[in-house]
């Protein structure tokens, strides 16, 4: 042991000498961005599930009560169990990110945003306390309150409200960073232009995300299940999860479009970067990914009905073809180059059949808007048809291929979450707070910090 220490100690000493003595404030920008980007992505991937579970779990419990079906109760309870296990993981990552990475790399930014968003942060802290208290209470009183289901569901309802408020408070900060308003007025801060669209987008997104991930989890459990009851339950839970996820996701085209519209109206540079600039290929990937998610879901619906020869599989196949067509339309690039600026610089701003680099079919208006409408309308039709066919399904009969589709769906959703975060955070660049504070050196470009008001002396 002492020999090992004798070898390791000098190496550690040398490594320590290489490290900066203080936090690397504003230095090593790429490392800071990478560390914070990766860290927050991991945090959001877990926190999104926790928040979604806090809202979906009580809803499923209520649904089970209304329908008098035990398996709903089992699924809701599983979501509660997940919350009790992963709430602390998610919050530990968040605390590490704030205290180590944000304070260490962007201390000035953090102190500024904490000053501006003091009220949302204050409420956020208390909603955390409320959320975790209610989550444990909700989960651990399941059996003791079996005779008082109304009371238990009321606790679940409060948990859903706390989970929503917790997301809303942090969305105020995130949306402020994209579309800042007068920071002196907490109400104006809370109602900044992208606050509502981002909150709706994230709330609906978290609900969809938890559905898809639990569907994938159920798929794993289904494949490992030995008795018929478990197989039937996990088959149903997988189907329920993807159905729920699709039902939520089909709202997203209109909410996401509203979000982009507000960014266009209030932070035009960020919007231009996303639609025409360096982020436009990523945006194109995002809108294609959305189409892929719908296609995989529709293929699952079709296959699941076909496995039990339930009615509706044929029409769902046709809808899948329609969804593929919509995805192709959405995936078409407008400028056949990395950015629109390079097309303009080369003087090739004309259709490709005239020797230019423009593909009119790839324009947002009207083609991509039509593709988005196609996504939503076809998904609604698919949900209806799948539900119509479900009475003909025997739970437990699912095949392995269908379970793989559920896993693929969850992976696509994770990719979507990371892609959206990447676009939003990079859309602001070179600013940490749009037009207010730069990333480089955390320079204030405007006075954003609240100035102390003179107090009258009696």
């Amino acid at each position: 042991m002492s020999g090992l220490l004798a070898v390791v100690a000098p190496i550690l000493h040398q490594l320590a000498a290489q490290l900066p003595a203080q936090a690397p404030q504003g230095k090593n920008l790429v490392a800071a961005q990478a560390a914070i980007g990766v860290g927050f992505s991991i945090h959001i991937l877990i926190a999104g599930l926790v928040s979604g579970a806090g809202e979906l779990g009580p809803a499923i419990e209520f649904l089970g009560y209304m329908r008098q079906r035990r398996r709903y109760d089992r699924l809701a309870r599983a979501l509660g169990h997940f919350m009790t296990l992963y709430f602390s993981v998610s919050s530990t990552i968040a605390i590490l990110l704030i205290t180590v990475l944000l304070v260490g790399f962007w201390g000035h930014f953090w102190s500024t945003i904490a000053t501006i968003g003091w009220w949302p942060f204050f409420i956020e802290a208390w909603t955390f306390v409320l959320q975790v208290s209610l989550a444990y209470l909700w989960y651990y009183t399941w059996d003791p309150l079996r005779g008082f289901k109304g009371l238990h569901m009321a606790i679940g309802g409060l948990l859903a409200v706390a989970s929503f408020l917790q997301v809303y408070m942090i969305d105020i900060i995130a949306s402020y960073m994209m579309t800042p308003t007068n920071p002196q007025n907490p109400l104006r801060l809370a109602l900044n232009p992208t606050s509502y669209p981002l909150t709706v987008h994230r709330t609906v997104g978290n609900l969809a995300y938890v559905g898809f991930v639990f569907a994938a989890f159920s798929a794993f459990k289904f494949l490992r299940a030995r008795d018929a009851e478990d197989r039937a339950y996990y088959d149903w839970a997988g189907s329920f999860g993807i159905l729920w996820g699709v039902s939520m996701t089909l709202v997203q085209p209109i909410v996401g479009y509203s979000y982009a519209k507000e960014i266009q109206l209030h932070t035009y540079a960020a919007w231009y970067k996303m639609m025409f600039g360096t982020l436009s290929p990523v945006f194109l990937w995002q809108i294609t990914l959305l189409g892929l998610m719908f296609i995989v879901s529709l293929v699952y619906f079709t296959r699941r009905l076909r496995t039990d020869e339930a009615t509706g599989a044929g029409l769902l196949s046709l809808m899948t073809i329609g969804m593929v067509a919509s995805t192709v339309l959405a995936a078409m690039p407008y400028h056949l180059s990395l950015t629109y600026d390079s097309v303009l610089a080369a003087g090739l701003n004309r259709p490709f059949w005239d020797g230019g680099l423009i593909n009119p079919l790839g324009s947002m208006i009207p083609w991509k808007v039509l593709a988005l409408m196609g996504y939503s309308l076809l998904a609604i039709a698919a949900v209806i048809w799948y539900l119509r066919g479900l009475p003909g399904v025997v739970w437990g009969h699912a095949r392995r291929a269908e379970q793989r589709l559920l896993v693929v769906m969850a992976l696509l959703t994770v990719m979507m979450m990371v892609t959206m975060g990447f676009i939003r955070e990079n859309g602001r660049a070179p600013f940490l707070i749009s037009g207010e504070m730069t990333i480089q050196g955390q320079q204030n470009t405007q006075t954003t910090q609240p100035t102390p008001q003179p107090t009258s002396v009696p």
Partner: protein
Amino acid sequence: MIRERLATAYNWFDERTAVRSLTRKGLYEAVPVRGAWFYTLGSATLILILLQLVTGIFLTMLYVPSVTEAWASLEYLKQHDAFGSIVRGIHLWSAYVLLFVIGLHMVRTFFSGSYKRPRELNWVTGVGLFVLVLGMAITGAFLPWDQAAYWTAVVVTNIPAYTPFIGSFIRALWRGGDFVGPITLVRTFGIHVWLIPAVLFPLIGAHLALLRKHGEHGSYINYRGAYRAREGVDVPPPPKQRPIEPPYPAVPSEEVWAAPLETEDFYPYQTFKDGLVSALLVVVVFILAVAIGAPLEAIADPSTTNYTPVPEWFYLPLDQLLVLVPQQLIPLILVLPAGGVVLMLLLPFIDRGPERNPFERPAVMVPGAFAVLFVVILTLLGSGRLFNQ
């Protein structure tokens, strides 16, 4: 002595009008116990419409429907007539509450499957009433002739122009020319106080007559026990059905939906609940009318360049859609609300099965739930946008 004379007078009156049996017929009807509070939404709607009528009559005694006098007459109310100002406030706030309550009433009817046989025409008249109430609200918004009213008129009268072939004609007919002006105001006033009420009140009569004919039954919530028995999931206690006799009007359409398991008399049980909810809403309206009142902006100025129009809250979902959707696709988008109304009218004829359980009717429930969800989300997004104009 006085009592005897009053009784004699009442008997004399009853002999000629049959008021006693009419009152009995009106008050003693079997209504379901389960879901009774949900049914108060219908009577609350009626009370709020009557409140609109009464306050509207008061306002017509002062309001002048001309572009030079309309704003001035309301400004006079605001500055010099405290009672009139409150009446105008009640007119406005009861309209807002009415839209909310009638919306809830429709949602309840839709989700509980109350529109099914033999109540198809109750639903159709109800949809008609909903559309007419919306029409009343939007035409009423033109009348103050302040900036908000003028720009609302500009936007709303332009919407019919997107109708294929006859759109421009309808717009010109409503506007009285190419632009919003004096004729628009007079025509909209005529529509608001004569045309729409002339259809609205007979339709209310028809709705109530049909309600009495078929009874306040038909909702899923009334029959949960019976439903479960049919499914074999649960065995309910023997049904305690009331004898169906005049004036109890429940006409059995199918064995299982003949009558609810448990009923009570309309008077005093349901009337108490109806009265309580309606009174509560009227108090809320009164408080809002006194505390906030009805706003009146600066007089309409078509030449202004710095005024940002703000739509009425009930118009927000459509307004948000118009903001989001590119110009080329607006006709396509306007098909949605128009198609929605047509689908609502056709609903009982599309969903004809006896099934009333919302979970067993995905073909209608899912589009309905998404429609409600989209309206709520568009309203939220629209309200967020308003704060940042």
